[in-house]
Structure formats: C-alpha cells, structure tokens
C-alpha cells in the first residue's frame, strides 16, 4: 500500500523562479526503502525538500498525498506532525544544545532510556554522547548519526534522507546501510533515500531515476538501477563493485 503518492509534481526554485522538477510522479510503499537516484543537478534534493515543504522551493503543479491526505499546502511542521521528517545532507549544528535535548526536541515524551537505545542503534555509545553538544566539536560522521537518531526519536512514518552516505568512507557507509536497515526494522518507517552509490542496492526495495528534473523510471530497484547505470555507461563498474547486481 502506498504511504506517499506524488502526482505530476512540478517545482520551481524560490530564488530564481527556474523550473527544477517537471511532472514528477512516484509512490512510496509502507515499510520500504525507496532510493532516489540521478546525476548531480537531476533534482533529487529538490524533490526531497519540496516533499518536506521547505519554503525555498515552490510547488507550481501537481500534488503530494501522504497517508491519503493532500499535504501539498501544509507547512514543514504540519507535515512533520503527520509523521514525515527529513535529515539534511549536511546537518545543522546547534550551539548550547545537548544531544539529549536535540533528540527530545520533537518528542518531549521520549525517555532517557529510549534516547540511549536510539544512540546505540545508530552506533554511538550513549554515555559518551548523550550530554555532548550538537556543535562543531562533533565529527561529520558523528553529526550525521545524531541526525539519524533525532529522526528516529520522532517515531516517523516516512524518513527522507538526503545523501546520508555523502562524505563517508567505504567502511562507514556500509555500516550506515546496516543502520538504515535497523531503522526500518525498529521503526517500521519507510525511507526515501537519496544516494549516488550503487551499494544502496544492498538495502533498497524500490527506486526512482531522475534526470534533468524528470522521472525516467520508477519501480523495483534492480531494473531502475540498470537503467541508471546504462545512462552513466557504468554498468561494468556497477557489476564489479556490486555482485548482488549481476542479474540486472
């Protein structure tokens, strides 16, 4: 059953009024991991931000249906309260805010024990991190994990992740995919994952391939990945690095 339905969505930049997305349509199933793939500038992040209602992107046509409700005109926090959330590619830092406070920001009822469990789930030692500040003293990888912990704490139904694997080395991002599977299992949420890496095939259920702001194809992961690799003339590389994609 579809958790999120995007119907003919067109989006312009709020800064220069340039059309970035044209008639995008796709569906995200419940309890699934759906990958958005495409080259730089194809509109992946714009789609993610437009779905979340970030105001610098203007929806000029189409609709977003979440939990059978048209949310196209709702604000960011209204969407979040319905169970949708987003983790930015480069998470913001917060001076004077502890990890505990940050995890409780959107869910005041969450217990300290639960926040510690969430930190363990995303691979951070709770005692070491719970009282640290969400500021520049954290490494990039630690901050990304805390961003994930923060979205899990909300108990969302849909988590949008904008390139959580960007800037991470190979060992860490493979660990990250394990964490995403844990998140899916623990929260029973769907994940819309933006990624450039072929290795997301290890965890993805479905995918959508975007090019120049248009949907090229959408469906089960492997055929979409095949199309994407062909477009990049990278199929051989994909197969070499990802034996699981041999039957593409």
């Amino acid at each position, binding site marked *: 059953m579809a958790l999120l339905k995007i119907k003919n969505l067109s989006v312009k930049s709020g800064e220069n009024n340039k059309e970035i997305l044209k008639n995008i349509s796709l569906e995200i199933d419940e309890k699934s991991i759906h990958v958005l793939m495409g080259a730089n500038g194809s509109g992946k992040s714009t789609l993610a931000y437009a779905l*979340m209602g*970030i105001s610098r992107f203007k929806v000029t046509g189409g609709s977003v249906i979440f939990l059978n409700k048209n949310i196209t005109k709702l*604000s*960011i*926090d209204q969407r*979040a*309260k319905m169970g949708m*959330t*987003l*983790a*930015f590619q480069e*998470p*913001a*830092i*917060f*001076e*004077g*805010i502890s990890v505990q*406070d940050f995890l409780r*920001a*959107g*869910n005041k009822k969450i217990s300290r024990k639960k926040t510690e469990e969430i930190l363990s789930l995303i691979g951070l030692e709770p005692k070491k991190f719970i009282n640290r500040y969400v500021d520049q003293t954290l490494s990039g990888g630690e901050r990304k994990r805390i961003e994930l912990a*923060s*979205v899990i704490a*909300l108990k969302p139904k849909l988590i949008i992740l904008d390139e959580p694997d960007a800037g991470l080395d190979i060992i860490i991002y493979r660990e990250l995919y394990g964490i995403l599977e844990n998140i899916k299992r623990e929260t029973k949420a769907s994940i819309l994952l933006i990624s450039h890496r072929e290795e997301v095939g290890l965890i993805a259920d479905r995918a959508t391939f975007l090019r120049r702001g248009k949907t090229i194809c959408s469906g089960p992961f492997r055929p979409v990945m095949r199309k994407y690799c062909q477009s990049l003339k990278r199929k051989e590389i994909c197969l070499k690095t990802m034996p699981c994609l041999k039957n593409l």
Partner: protein
Amino acid sequence: MSQNNALPKKFISSAKKCGFDTALMQAAGVPHFYAESNKILSFQKTAGLEMKAQSFKEGVKIKLIVKKGVKIKKPIFLCFGILKNQGKQIILPEIILEEKAEAKILAHCTFPIAEKITHRMETVMKLGKNSRLSYQEKHYHGENFGAEVLPNFKVLLERGSFFNNEFILDQGSVGKLKINLEMELKKEALVEITNKIVTRGEKDKVEIFDKVLLRGENSKSLIKSRAAAIGGGSVFLQGETVALAKGACGHIDCQEIVIGKKSIAKAIPIVEVCHPEARVTHEASVGKVNQKELETLMTRGLSEEEATDFIVKGVVR
C-alpha cells in the same frame, strides 16, 4: 561571625528563575553575603575567607579576601537587589584572591518588581599569582522594563592566574543595562569572559564594553558574547583586546540574533596588536536565526516560533 541565612521570598523565587540552587544558597555553613537596598540581610564566612562589609546611605561596601593557598570548595553566594518598585542601590565589592587561592562565586542581582530602579556596581578584583576564580553573575530585572543597571568591573590578573567570568541575563526584561569591564593580564594569566543576554521589548537597551589588556608574555583571553535582540530591544556589544607582549593571544567571538521588527543588534570588535609575536582574532555573526537550524527543527515538528525559542535558549544557555 555569621548571621541567620534568611533570604526574602522574592530573592529566592528570582534566584530559582535564574537557575540557582536555592537550597544550597540557604544551607547552613555555605559562605555568602546577601543585601537588599542598603541593608545587609545575612552573611557567612568560612575558613580562609575574610569578609568585611558596611552599609552606607545608598548601598553596601563589601570586601572579600580568599587567603593565600586556600581553596574554597563550596561556592560563595552573593545576592544583591531592591525588592521595592523604586529605589537606588550602589554596591562596592572588592574581591581579592591571594597567591594560589581558588574560589567560585555565584552572584545574583535581582529587581523583581522594578519600575524605577537604579543599581550601580563598582567592582574591583585582584587575582594573585597562580590563583583561580570562577565568577558567575546572573541578573533578574523583573518584567516591567524599569531597571537601570550599571555594573563596572576593574580586574587585575597577576602572573599565572585564571579568571572565568560569566554574565547572564536571559529571564524577564532588561530595562537599561550598561556594563564596563576592564581587565589587565600579567604574564601567563588567562581569562574567559562570557556575556549572555536576551532582550524582550522596545525599552530594553543593552550596552556592553569589555576591554582586555594582555600586558604579560603568553597571557591569553577569550571574550565570548551571545545575545538575542527580541521584541524591539537593542544590543550593542564591544569587545576590545589589546596585545602588548610576546606570545599574547586573544580571541573575540560574538554572536547576536535579531528577532522581530525594530530589534537592533550591533557588534564592534576592536583588536590591537603591539608586539610582532602576539596575535588577536575575532569573529562575529549578527542577524536572523540560522535558516537551516530553523528548518531542521521544523522537520522535527516544532513550529517556527518554538524552533526560534529553542535556538535562542541554546545560544544564550
């Protein structure tokens, strides 16, 4: 010599509002000095801490001396204020830490129903060689924008001493606040100055002038200011660091958030270096709440107002 540690209820409630441990403030044996207008309410000495005080027509004069080599484990509480809606108070504190002495002072100034109040404070501090002082001053000026608070500090840090100085006014209205702080550091002395201020309305005017003279070799300073100009209030912060000796090193870090029409924030860092082997740096950020921080919190379900409040509390915490 001691007197009964009985703080008026209004002092206690405002101290609580500012995050003080009010049970500890009133506990037996905790060193303290409490005064309302020109009346000395209560004081408590401890071993190694000398305390002399006298009141005069418009206020109170107090001298604290932490004796050589003495480390006072419990915090020393100072509490000054005016509990009427009008009045004038002058406080003249002299705080001396002798060589290798250590102390932590928690000071509270309160004017909970101020409508027309002037509070002036002329503080002189002397930190002896290799002494350490942590001094935190938290203010509460009530909700009526009726306080005029004018604290001045002159601080001398002898060789190898360390001073951590924090001023916080993040509850209620400000009224008019003007702080002048001047510090002089000898060889290898170290100071950290932190100001945290939030305005609430158009009548709130804040001016802070922090000046550090790094006279001694390898002396170091940090002036860190965090302010939020909200509701039409204005905040002016001037941090000045002058480096005069080899290895002297200073940094000025100022962050001011502006929220709402007519609110004004202004920052002036002044850096002056008079030695080729000294260095002073500064950074400042003045303006609206960071958009990415705001959007991140909104994606967690906070409204724009809630998210702004959350960010401001973090910045001035």
